[in-house]
């Protein structure tokens, strides 16, 4: 149908949301432009190159590591007669639930200088374990807790494969290993690429895990530069370089997603595939799955429970945990609620009234997401100290930062739900005597409610785990579970971080369950 003009109020609301979402990116650009020469000096410093190389090295290593874990796991749990493969499928996906900084904390608490393993081996005369800190630790933590981002799409792609292609290859006399390499793998490339890019984006913007592992990647350097000096241009310049890297990866990801649509199997039902017999490889395959689950799931969860019981045994006050949990809930709920309202404006405008303006609003809506959390926060620190001083270090500013950062997470499911409501239904309601706002309330809103709920759950889930923006923007003395875990771990108080981490996982569980039921957890 022909595009129609949107109601003025909706247009204004959409433009306002888009403008606000773009604020961090725009103000970062303004800051750098204002001090172009010193910013350029900072960018072209030798150290910046080193940081960039270190970061790229970590991103590449984590991506390769995640793919290396995920592809065999996906194949084993989808295509073979691996015993209890349903259970393995669930267990190997679960590490995604653990935020990488909690995972990093638990790895440090296990293998670090004052960790559990050190304590266990000291009586044997081993004074010092090889250090977990640095590249190895950051690589291990990020790989172990992000590989499900590759596993889930690859499992999906494997399930959609047409078995006739493999049968045809077999009929042409190819052996199974050859078929896997020449027929299966090429069809998995889009899924592997998409998942791998998600891992790369995560690694590039991650702050918690690298800072706990004391690995000087971009985000940690930005934080250090921010803390160290009054002249924060260096931090801004580093942030800008990081944003450019993010944009490159995001553009690649967008292209790959576009291409993937052509690879999708037709709507016809795909005949179920016969499971491939593992034969004598059964035991090694089980061992592989077992090791991954042990390190990425059982060890962290076990340690968490262990440290928590230690802490409870010491009888420490839980008052601060309750207060911090309340703060986490408050920030995340506000961000989810405001995010859904803003996302509704953007989604209705872009889906129902396509035009150049609404396309722009949609793009602007993604601006906050393209920036790593620490860069969003940094830009808003500048904005707060120079333009909006009354808002600086207020709860409002913190909620704003988190909301604009995660806004697209709510736009996605809402837009998808809205696309499934045919405009005819809304027109029918108008023909039956209802005004446009009434139609939205009685027809559109009930039909997209589940999309809105999914959007809210996604924003909540990410907001409750959010670390860097909260560190930079929270009012003085305002601690959340995330900042508490980070501070305790940074100071080596592993026991003290356990209960906040456990509580955080428990708070994240209901929205995560809701999303996995709806199958949107990876979207």
């Amino acid at each position, binding site marked *: 149908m*022909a595009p129609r003009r949107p109601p003025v109020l909706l247009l204004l609301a959409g433009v306002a949301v888009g403008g606000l979402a773009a604020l961090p990116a725009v103000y970062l650009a303004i800051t750098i432009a204002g001090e172009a020469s010193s910013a350029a000096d900072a960018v072209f410093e030798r150290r910046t190159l080193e940081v960039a190389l270190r970061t790229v090295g970590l991103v590449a290593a984590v991506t390769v590591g995640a793919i290396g874990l995920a592809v065999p796991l996906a194949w084993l749990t989808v295509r073979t007669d691996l015993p209890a493969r349903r259970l393995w499928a669930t267990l190997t996906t679960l590490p995604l639930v653990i935020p990488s900084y909690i995972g990093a904390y638990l790895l440090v608490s296990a293998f670090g200088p004052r960790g559990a393993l050190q304590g266990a081996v000291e009586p044997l005369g081993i004074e010092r374990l090889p250090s977990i800190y640095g590249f190895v630790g950051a690589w291990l933590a990020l790989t172990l807790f992000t590989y499900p981002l590759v596993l889930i799409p690859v499992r999906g792609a494997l399930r959609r494969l047409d078995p006739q292609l493999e049968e045809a290859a077999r009929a042409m006399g190819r052996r199974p290993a050859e078929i896997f390499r020449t027929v299966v793998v090429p069809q998995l490339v889009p899924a592997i690429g998409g998942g791998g890019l998600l891992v790369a984006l995560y690694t590039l913007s991650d702050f918690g895990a690298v800072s706990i592992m004391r690995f000087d990647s971009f985000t940690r350097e930005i934080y250090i530069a921010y803390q160290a000096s009054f002249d924060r241009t260096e931090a801004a310049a580093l942030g800008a370089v990081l944003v450019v890297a993010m944009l490159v990866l995001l553009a690649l990801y967008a292209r790959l997603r576009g291409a993937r649509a052509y690879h999708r199997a037709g709507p016809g039902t795909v005949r179920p595939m016969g499971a491939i017999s593992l034969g004598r490889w059964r035991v090694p395959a089980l061992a592989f799955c077992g090791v991954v689950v042990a390190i990425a799931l059982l060890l962290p969860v076990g340690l968490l429970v262990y440290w928590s019981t230690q802490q409870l045994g010491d009888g420490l006050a839980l008052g601060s945990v309750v207060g911090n949990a309340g703060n986490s809930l408050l920030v995340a709920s506000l961000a989810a609620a405001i995010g859904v309202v803003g996302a509704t404006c953007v989604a209705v405008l872009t889906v129902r009234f396509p035009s150049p303006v609404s396309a722009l609003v949609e793009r602007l809506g993604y601006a906050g997401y393209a920036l790593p959390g620490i860069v969003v926060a940094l830009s808003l620190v500048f904005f707060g100290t120079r333009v909006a001083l009354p808002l600086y270090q207020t709860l409002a500013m913190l909620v704003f930062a988190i909301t604009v950062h995660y806004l697209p997470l709510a736009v996605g499911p809402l837009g998808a739900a809205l696309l499934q409501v045919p405009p*005819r239904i809304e027109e029918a309601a108008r023909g039956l005597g209802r005004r446009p706002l009434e139609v939205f309330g009685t027809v559109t809103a009930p039909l997209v409610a589940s999309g809105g709920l999914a959007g809210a759950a996604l924003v909540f889930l990410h907001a409750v785990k959010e670390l860097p923006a909260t560190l930079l923007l929270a009012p003085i003395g305002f601690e959340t579970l995330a900042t508490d875990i980070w501070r305790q771990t940074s100071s080596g108080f592993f026991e003290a971080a356990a209960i906040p981490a456990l509580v955080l996982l428990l708070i994240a569980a209901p929205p995560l369950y809701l999303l996995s039921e709806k199958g949107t957890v990876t979207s």
Partner: protein
Amino acid sequence: MTDRHPDTPASLTIRDLRKSFADTVAVGGLDLHVEGGRLCALLGPSGCGKTTTLRLIAGLERPDAGSIELGERALTTAGTFVPPERRRIGMVFQDYALFPHYDVAGNVAYGLGRRANRGRVREVLELVGLDRVADRPVHQLSGGQQQRVALARALAPTPELILLDEPFSNLDASLRERVREDVREIIAAAGVTALFVTHDQEEALSLAERVAVLREGRVEQVGTPEEIYSRPSTPWMAAFLGEVEVLAGEARDGRVKCELGSLAVETKAEGTVEVLIRPESVAIGITGPPDATEAEVVGRRFYGHDQLVELRLPSGRKVSSRRLGFPAWHPGDRVQVWVEGPADVLPGS
């Protein structure tokens, strides 16, 4: 009957209606008058602007120019545009557009708003014969039932006009015939003016009291189904409504001479004309009337209850004859060919 609209049903008058999308003219100066209480069909090939016209009447699109009046009320003129919710026009969409989050009764009650009462909902559901499934979710209904829910929903607020967009295209062929008849009866019982859009000539001719044929955004011809079929106003009209042979002829004194002989003409015509002959009027036999023409069978398609026989006239021109399925004719047969009944002529070009 309480469903009948209290006043005399409103007539619909459209004058010089125009609507373009970007560079495409969808409706280009359309005039139409539908008398109150009539069931009128808008018939035309796809892309002729039928659905756009319907949406303009419903107020779902704004016209570029022209006026729409319903009874005494101006819905769209140069200065006014009544929003769809205040037009009192019921619409039945091609895909029904039922609300998936309401049950059958909920869908019907929706248009009644705060005036909703069980009595009216039940009354309308009885009218369409769905009172027994009132509390079912709509997705559990068959296509024909969903169609009737959509109709009931549109009728519930006693609209002055009801619009139906390709109302039967989503139904199985086997179901369509019966549902058509049901719909006609329901609309007649409700006593409401109705306009439906279709591309199916048979549907328009069999269901409507009046048919308006649309071509490229304008009305090509309006009339009763019989007038439309038997006296098309242009060769395009004649061809659109079915297979037709166009022969050159000379008309004089109520008769026209053409290659198939001298035929009676119903309309007044003199001089050079085009003679329109439908295949079902072309008769063939081993022997024929005195003025029959010689012809040779050159092809035959068998359809079961009838057959289409292709003939070559002495001049080399080919014409088709639609006959019952028996006797079978075969290529090579020499036959006599003549025209049964009067012919229709158009001024020659």
